């Protein structure tokens, strides 16, 4: 389980700089790729089984094969470094510590796609990383890996880094393209898909940082070698951003297939719960995916071990499972309040809704308002049902998946933690302080729900 692909060289002193990166075998995948047929590179990536690491898990090679190479219009590769899903901070780690790995991946991938002008779109708040990448790109130009006739191959590529202005929605690929065109980040109606009409109406592929940073290894080794790592259709290694109530938060690279139990409790990874407090819930893939209650974290509903794979994390559907999403692994102990946390997420989605579709624009606001009411002891039993019906009406009725992403956390919270909502409604005097469960964990007081009838 120890294979490292992305982090293999990250701890080498000075690896941030071009010289050290190159001395350690950097840019070798470009040398190899430039001698290959571009479509064969796409085939290798297809064989690897690499799935998009931005959240949706769509096969990367397949996406590349959709790019319109017939129209003759210029093509672009755009790297999605918007990373704004709460709980996710892995792309930042890669770009901060080994920026040339992403640049190398961008060159190799752009060559495969026949793109001559590519961009890295990074969230504006990561300004120091933006500057780091700018410097690294200058180094790559100076060393002849970018620009005209790269290493005598006849292939030209210009690569630039572009910064956003603070908007989660710009992580959605068509909003990202709008934003890169200097506009508001309103997602486009699909089709047409970016592979046909993307940046400036040209064929465009948008891929996550981690997806692109994996390509050099696949080209240097082989798609088949990559496909042997991991488990089943969850091939390769995956970065997880760990936060919340564990002993060792941070970014970890693991081979997919490890048990959730080992990842959470071994000293090599999360190191178990902070202060050894009881576990309450886990969000395995960023704020948009359903929270799992304690009894569904280490085992699936069928009693099988829950594994760190796309398939196992979603086993049971939304009734008893969740999703690997962006790999934002957020752990909650018994002091966390699910109602408050769900309100916190609804506030986020309300704030980040672009406002184009009424179910999302209005629904996120209503959910935030009702959750705030319940969290502050002014909610009613009907409010819980109202919340349920609002989230159900957003899901599937919007232009982009942000609407669904706003609905799912609310649905999962009610599905698995309805008793906490009821407690808030029935015992308003017990939840006045925002730290109510820090002072008195729900486990200690939930018997009150049985004893009293209203």
């Amino acid at each position, binding site marked *: 389980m120890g294979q490292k692909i992305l982090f293999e060289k990250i701890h080498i002193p000075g690896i941030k700089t071009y010289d050290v990166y190159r001395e350690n075998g950097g840019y070798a995948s470009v040398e190899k790729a430039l001698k290959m047929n571009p479509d064969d590179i796409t085939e290798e990536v297809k064989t690897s089984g690499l799935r998009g690491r931005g959240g949706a898990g769509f096969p990367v090679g397949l996406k590349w094969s959709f790019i319109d190479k017939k129209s003759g219009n210029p093509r672009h590769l755009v790297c999605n470094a918007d990373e704004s899903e709460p709980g*996710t901070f892995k792309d930042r780690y890669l770009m901060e510590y080994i920026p040339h790995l992403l640049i190398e991946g961008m060159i190799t991938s752009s060559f495969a796609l026949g793109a001559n002008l590519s961009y890295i779109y990074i969230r504006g708040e990561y300004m120091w990383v933006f500057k780091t990448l700018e410097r690294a790109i200058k180094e790559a130009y100076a060393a002849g890996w970018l620009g005209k006739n790269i290493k005598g191959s006849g292939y030209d590529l*210009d690569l630039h880094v572009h910064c956003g*202005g603070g908007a989660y929605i710009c992580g959605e690929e068509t909003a990202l393209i709008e934003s890169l065109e*200097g506009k508001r980040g309103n997602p486009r109606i699909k089709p047409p898909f970016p592979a046909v009409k993307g940046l400036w109406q040209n064929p465009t592929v948008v891929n996550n940082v981690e997806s692109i940073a994996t390509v050099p290894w696949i080209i240097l080794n082989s798609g088949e070698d990559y496909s042997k790592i991991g488990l089943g259709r969850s091939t390769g290694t995956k970065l997880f951003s760990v936060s919340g109530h564990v002993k060792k938060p941070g970014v970890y690279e693991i081979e997919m297939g490890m048990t959730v139990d080992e990842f959470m409790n071994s000293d090599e990874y999360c190191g178990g719960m902070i202060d050894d407090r009881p576990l309450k819930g886990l969000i395995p893939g960023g704020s948009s995916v359903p929270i799992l209650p304690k009894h569904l974290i280490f085992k699936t509903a069928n009693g099988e071990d829950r594994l760190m794979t796309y398939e196992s994390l979603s086993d049971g559907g939304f009734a008893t499972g969740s999703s690997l999403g962006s790999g934002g692994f957020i752990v909650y102990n018994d002091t966390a309040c699910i109602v408050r946390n769900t309100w916190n997420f609804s506030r986020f989605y309300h704030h980040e809704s672009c406002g184009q579709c009424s179910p999302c624009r209005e629904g996120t606001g209503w959910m935030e308002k009702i959750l705030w009411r319940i969290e502050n002891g002014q909610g009613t039993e009907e409010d819980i049902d109202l919340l349920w019906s609002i989230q159900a009406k957003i899901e599937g009725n919007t232009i982009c998946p942000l609407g669904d992403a706003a609905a799912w956390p609310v649905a999962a919270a009610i599905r698995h933690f309805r008793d906490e909502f009821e407690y808030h409604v029935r015992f308003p005097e017990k939840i006045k302080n925002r730290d109510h469960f820090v002072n008195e964990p729900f486990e200690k007081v939930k018997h009150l729900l049985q004893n009293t009838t209203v």
Partner: protein
Amino acid sequence: METLKKYHQDINITPELMQRIQELVSHYPEGKQKSALLPVLHELQDAHDNWLSVELQNKAAEILNITPIEVYEVVTFYTMFNQKPVGKYMLEFCVTSCCAINKAEDVMDYTCEKLGVKPGQVTADGLFSVVGVQCLGACGYAPMLQLGDFYHEHLTKEKVDQLINDCKEDKITLHDK
């Protein structure tokens, strides 16, 4: 009159700033200079006390040869562009889940109290403002705040005290130039 004065901004596009803007514009194809809008607004804002007056937004439109409305609609969409003066040191606390369960709200309240401001307000000397923002991608290093181009992580009240002192003593670099 008071308000008019308060919202006045002296615009100064130095040759270096103009050169940097030209460099950014050169990253996009001929005729697609509007794409440079976000990076250019960041540069203009950084050079003008961290906010963008209408006059400065008009200037951006002029430089990029686009209409002013194209700039206004962008400035109002993205959270990082400030349409009013803010403190020289704007302390932006993440208040999203992973930070919230790590006492972000307590640290932010403490900071507000210490500086005598509410979220969104600027101290009388114009030095500080405090705001709550959404997840900044530092969830594993919570609680945290952003100040200029940099993050300050694993915050405690003591660290906030130190940071505020460093700001007052002009020891803090805001931008990575």
